[in-house]
Each structure stands twice: as C-alpha cells, then as structure tokens.
C-alpha cells in the first residue's frame, strides 16, 4: 500500500473517515463533532441570555427554558468539552511518546462513534417531544417525574456516549503504559501526556458510578423499579451521591488536560523549559487523587450533617494547594523567558488570572457554612464558568491554534486569532464577572425569569451583552478556519520554530505511520535536547524496517448504530409494540458485530521499508 497521496473523490474520503482507525483522523473527527456540539451549546447559551436580558421576559416558557438550560450544560460538558479534549489528545499524545498509534486503534474508532451516536440521540429529543429538563445533574426527584421522554433521551444518550468515553480512557492509559519510545521514561513524558494519563485514570474510575446512576434512573423510569422513589423504600440521595462521585472527578477530567496544554504552550513561547517538572507531575497526580474525595461539597445543603460537611470542606480546600503549585510553576516558567505573544500564548497568559479567579471563588464555596448562602445562586454559576471557560475553553482554543498546523498542515491566521481572543476574553468577563454579584444579591440559578426592581436588571443586561461578544468571537474563529482551509500556506514540521516535544519532529501533518523509525529519547523535552546538540532530527532507536499498520473497519460505526437503534426500543417499549423487537434487533446488531470482530482474523497490513525510504521529508526532522 503506497503512502503517496492520491487525489481522492468525495466518496472515497467519506469511506476513509467512516472506517478509519488512525488516531490522527479520529482526532479530526472528534474536532468536527465536538466543534459542532460546541456551537449548538453556544446557541443554547445565547438563548438563555436573551431570555434573561430583561425582567419578566417571555421569549420562552419556563418549561422550554428548563430544556434549553439542561441541554446547554449537558451538551457543553459531554458533547463539546470532552470530545474537543479527546481531539487534542488523539492528535498529539501518540506523537509525543514516539508511538505509531494508540494501543487499540479499533476501540479508538468505536469510542468516537459511540460519542457521536449518543450525542445525536440526546439531541433528537428536541424533535421528539422535548429535551430533558431537570438540569445537567438530573436529580432523581424531579427527573423521575419529568413528563415526556426528555429524561429518557438524557439517560440513554449519555449511557451510549459514556461507554465511548470509558473506552477512550482505557485506550490512552494502555498506550502511555506500553507504547513509549525507547528512552521515554515516565519522568520524561511531556506534561500534556502526563495530564492525559491522569485524566484517563479519572475517567476509568469516575464513569462507572455514572453508568450505574443513569442505569438505575432508566430502570426507575422505564422499568418500574424503586431506587430513588421513596414510596417503595427508595432514596433520592443515592442519585446525588452516584452523580457527584462521577461529577466531581469529571471536572478534573476536563481541567487537567487543560493544564497540560498550557504546560506545553508556555515553555515554547517563553523559550524556557517548564519550571518544576517533578512538582507539576506530583501536583497532577495529587489533584487526581483528591478529586475523588470531595464530591459531597455539591451536597452541603442536603443534610449530611456537620461532621461530613467539615471533612468534605477541608478536603476541597486542600485541592487548592497542588493547583497553586502549578500556577506558580507557570509563572516562574514565563519569568525571565523570551516571550512571544502568539495567539496560544495570549490564551495562556489570560488563563492564569481568569482561572485563579474561578479557583478562589471555589475556596469560598468550599466553606460549608458560607455555601448555605451561595448554593443555588448565580455565585455558583459564576464560579464554574470561570474555571471551565477560563480553564478548559481557553485551553481548547489555545491548543487548537497551537496544534492546528500539526493536524492540518496549515497555520490558522494569527490576525484573526487575536481578534477572536480579544472578543472572547472581553465577552467572557463581561458575562460572568457580574454574575458573582447577582448571586450575592440573591438571584437564584435555574430560573427562567425574575421580577423587576430587585437590583438584578442592569447586571443581567450586561451579562447578556457579553454573550454577544463571545458569539462574535466564535464566528470569527469559524471564518478563520474556513479561510485557512481554503487558502492557507503549507508548513513544515516545526512551524512555531521552538517546538520542544516529539510531535514537532515529524512533518505537518505526519505520515500515516508517524515515525519512519521510532526515535531515541535522551531526556525531557526530547526534541529540544537534539536541537541544542545542533542536530536536525531525532536519532533513530531502531533500523529501518517494515511497519505494521492496522486495517480500517466499518464495524465500530455499525456497532454504535446498533446501540442507537436499541435506545429507541428502550424508550418506547411500554407505548408501542415494536419497542421490544427494536431493542433486540439493535442489541443484536451490536453483539453480532462484536462476534464478527472476534472471529474474523485481522492482522493489518505492512508498509514495506522500500516505500519508507522513498518518502522524502517525512522522517524525524527537527
């Protein structure tokens, strides 16, 4: 199979992407899917802010507002932020460790298609009777009684997407454990890979409680059980525990890779190595561990009692310590460096104060007695948007700009990128800064309107204006992407010129097989070491030989489709006779594809070393 680029028709490209198991193409798929849902979640946000712009507004009813608010949160966390982070992890991590692909390429594809079908299923609710409306947390008192099928879409859609996430987490863990290039010890891993590793461990342990929780909610709603229904002995607190035992680690799953992205960007654009590498690794692991010990800070007002509240309050505050270590390390990295204010660096520099603001309000919320005042007000909304947008969204935008040339071979326009940054930064602070005060003045969250003359009017208007800025920023970003794709100049392997890690040692985009010969890693910042020694490329760790590559497969697409089909059966089982057959057909399709995968031998194919030798300019160049 030749590695020369053939001009391909649309059908061929479509089939290529439907069947690909290549981590680089799967990264692009996650970017497209996550990007699409990010825009959807953004539209939902705009609708919220339009409704809340003035008091007593009636653009939408309370019921519709509840659906939009629920879908905004659910979409942004599960269908936008996580997939976009997976896009960057897929694009970058195998290259950073000097590997040719992830440990399980087939499962990598399956993870993506499960996410996509789960997300589509959830959003079909808009057209099929109404979206879920009990908040992204779907507490099982309200969600048990929610009429219509909205919550069922939530339960089934997230279950499908969640399996995909779990698969992806296991994949990255196995890849990082087993497939590092020679010389790449754990303490020579780039920080983005370390944070991917710890976040993947969090995924492994945090998603099962969510799986159980939404399965039990499904059983209660669709199969008549009584886990959460007190009439027959159930208890609603069980849902809260299960959800938050997942939900708290989930936010660390989001923010740790964000930290990793900034740990890559700041050293490159300060031309100075990361300060305190070992403590950064230690802090990452500690944040991951502590992340499992604090979930009940979301439940301070439920009546856990003072002892439990105190324990969880102290544990929550403790997480600020390793986080603070990271902040100081980033500052000390930039201090004394030769700083280049590129678009990624602008996001990185503005992330530091923005995220810290979110972090300190987090410590305020962690004080359990104070939380009795903050809980369910806009103060909480302000806090989590500061850490999620100031942390995760800034990181995704920064990472997209930083690694765009590696993924697509072209640099995004710096001029348009800076305009996006300025608009987004202004809009973000305009929308959310004032919300701290709204909360302290007493405006509750999750309300579809408010009465005039309580002191909320001007603040809500300002908040809504900020949303317009953010929308404009995203539009400019989309224009940037379109213009770059149409007319951008092709770039070489190290377009930022100061790359320190292995992904900048291969061409942009990399060849199918990533590395002609696996590189020999001599220390931290493996490529930088070679550059400092005056070399043009990485030393090879193996002789030139045939490269073994996996075959593509349409099975992951069909497996995900099977679960998607069966979900309709689960939902309509009690109303339509076709419910049970559809469940069986859908599950049958999935199980049969699993059987096919098991019994059909698929040994992949080889790229012969003669073809590798022909490939110019695709070696490991500095």
């Amino acid at each position, binding site marked *: 199979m030749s590695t020369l680029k053939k001009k391909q028709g649309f059908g061929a490209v479509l089939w290529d992407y439907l069947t690909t198991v290549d981590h680089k193409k799967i990264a692009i798929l996650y970017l497209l899917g996550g990007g699409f849902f990010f825009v959807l979640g953004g539209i939902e946000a705009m609708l919220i802010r339009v409704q809340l712009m003035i008091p007593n507004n009636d653009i939408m009813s309370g019921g519709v507002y509840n659906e939009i608010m629920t879908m905004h949160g659910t979409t942004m966390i599960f269908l936008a932020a996580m997939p976009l982070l997976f896009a960057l992890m897929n694009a970058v991590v195998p290259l950073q460790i000097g590997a040719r692909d992830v440990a399980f390429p087939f499962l990598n594809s399956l993870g993506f298609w499960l996410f996509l079908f789960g997300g589509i299923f959830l959003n079909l609710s808009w057209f099929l009777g109404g979206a879920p409306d009990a908040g992204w947390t779907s507490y099982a008192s309200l969600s048990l009684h929610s009429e219509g099928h909205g919550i069922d879409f939530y339960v089934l859609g997230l279950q499908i997407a969640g399996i995909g996430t779990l698969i992806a987490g296991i994949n990255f863990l196995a890849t990082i454990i087993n497939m590092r290039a020679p010389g790449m010890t754990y303490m020579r891993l780039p920080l983005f890979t370390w944070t991917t590793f710890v976040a993947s461990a969090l995924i492994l342990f945090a998603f099962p409680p969510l799986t159980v929780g939404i399965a039990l909610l499904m059983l209660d709603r669709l199969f008549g059980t009584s886990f959460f229904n*007190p009439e027959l002995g159930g208890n609603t*607190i069980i849902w809260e525990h299960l959800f938050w035992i997942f939900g708290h680690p989930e936010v660390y799953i989001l923010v740790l890779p964000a930290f990793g992205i900034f740990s890559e960007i700041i050293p490159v654009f300060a031309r100075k190595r990361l300060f305190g590498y070992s403590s950064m690794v230690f802090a990452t692991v500690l944040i991951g561990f502590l992340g499992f010990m604090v979930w009940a800070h979301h439940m301070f007002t439920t009546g856990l009692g003072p002892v439990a509240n105190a324990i969880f309050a102290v544990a929550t505050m403790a997480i600020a310590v390793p986080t603070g270590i990271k902040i100081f390390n980033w500052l000390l990295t930039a201090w004394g460096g030769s700083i280049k204010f590129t678009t990624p660096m602008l996001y990185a520099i503005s992330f530091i104060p923005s995220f810290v603001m979110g972090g300190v309000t987090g410590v305020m919320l962690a004080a359990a007695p104070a939380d009795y005042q903050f809980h369910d007000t806009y103060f909480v909304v302000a806090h989590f948007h500061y850490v999620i947008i100031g942390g995760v969204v800034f990181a995704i935008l920064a990472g997209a700009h930083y690694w765009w040339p590696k993924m697509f071979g072209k640099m995004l326009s710096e001029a348009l990128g800076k305009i996006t940054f300025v608009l987004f930064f202004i809009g973000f602070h305009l929308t959310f800064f004032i919300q701290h005060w709204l909360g302290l003045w007493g405006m509750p969250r999750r309300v579809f309107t408010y009465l005039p003359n309580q002191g909320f009017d001007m603040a809500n208007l300002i908040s809504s204006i900020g949303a317009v800025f953010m929308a404009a920023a995203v539009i400019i970003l989309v224009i940037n992407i379109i213009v770059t794709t149409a007319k951008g100049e092709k770039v070489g392997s190290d377009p930022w010129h100061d790359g320190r890690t292995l992904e900048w040692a291969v061409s942009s985009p990399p060849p199918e097989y990533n590395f002609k010969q696996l590189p020999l890693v001599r220390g931290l910042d493996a490529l930088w070491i070679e550059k400092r020694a005056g070399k043009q490329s990485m030393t090879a760790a193996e002789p030139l030989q045939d490269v073994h590559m996996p075959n593509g497969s349409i099975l992951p697409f069909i497996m995900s489709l099977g679960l998607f089909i069966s979900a309709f059966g689960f939902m309509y089982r009690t109303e339509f006779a076709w419910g049970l057959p559809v469940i069986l057909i859908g599950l049958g399709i999935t199980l049969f594809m699993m059987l096919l995968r098991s019994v059909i031998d698929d040994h992949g194919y080889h790229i012969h070393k003669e073809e590798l030798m022909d490939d110019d300019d695709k070696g490991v160049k500095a």
Partner: protein
Amino acid sequence: MVNNENRGNPKTDLAYRKKKNAEDMRYQVISFGLMIGLTLVAFLTVASDAGVWFTVPFILLLAVIQVAFQLYYFMHMSQRGHEAPTLFLYSGVLVAFVTVLAFVTLIWW
C-alpha cells in the same frame, strides 16, 4: 514461581519450564483448598449463633482474604510484570471503598 522470562531464545529448557509450571499449579490447588476452607468457615459462622457484631466483620474479613488469594494466585498478581495492574486495581479498590463507606454512613431517611 512461574518462569516468566521472555528470552526470545526458541530453545529454552522445556523440561525446566514444565517443572516450574507444575510447581505453580500445586500452589494454585493449595490456594483453592484454602478458599474452600474460608468459604466453609464463613457459612458455618453464619449458621452458628455467634452474634451479629462478631459475624459480620468476621465474614467480611474472610471475604477479603479469599479475594486476595484469587487476585494474587489465580490471577497472578504476585508475579513479575504486574506493577501497573496492581496500581490500577488498588486505585479502583480505594474509590470503591470510599463509595461504599459514603453509602453506609451518608444516606438517611
């Protein structure tokens, strides 16, 4: 215990390996006997009239010991090359323990 050397040399001493495997199998059968014993003790304790306050912690301890035999012997967690599996399994056990602890202390009616 079992010879897990991945020497790449195709002519390793077959008789030696067979002996090592058989010795490992003997350990496995002894473990099995002990597991049956632990199970019997647990059932007998419940059948007897030892009070609840002794029985419950005792049978839980027996369960933990039996699971340790499964993990370390049947599943080879005691052998070389199991550092990462051990780390991740114990991490899972930690999260599991915290979850169960929360549910038996922090749920009320």
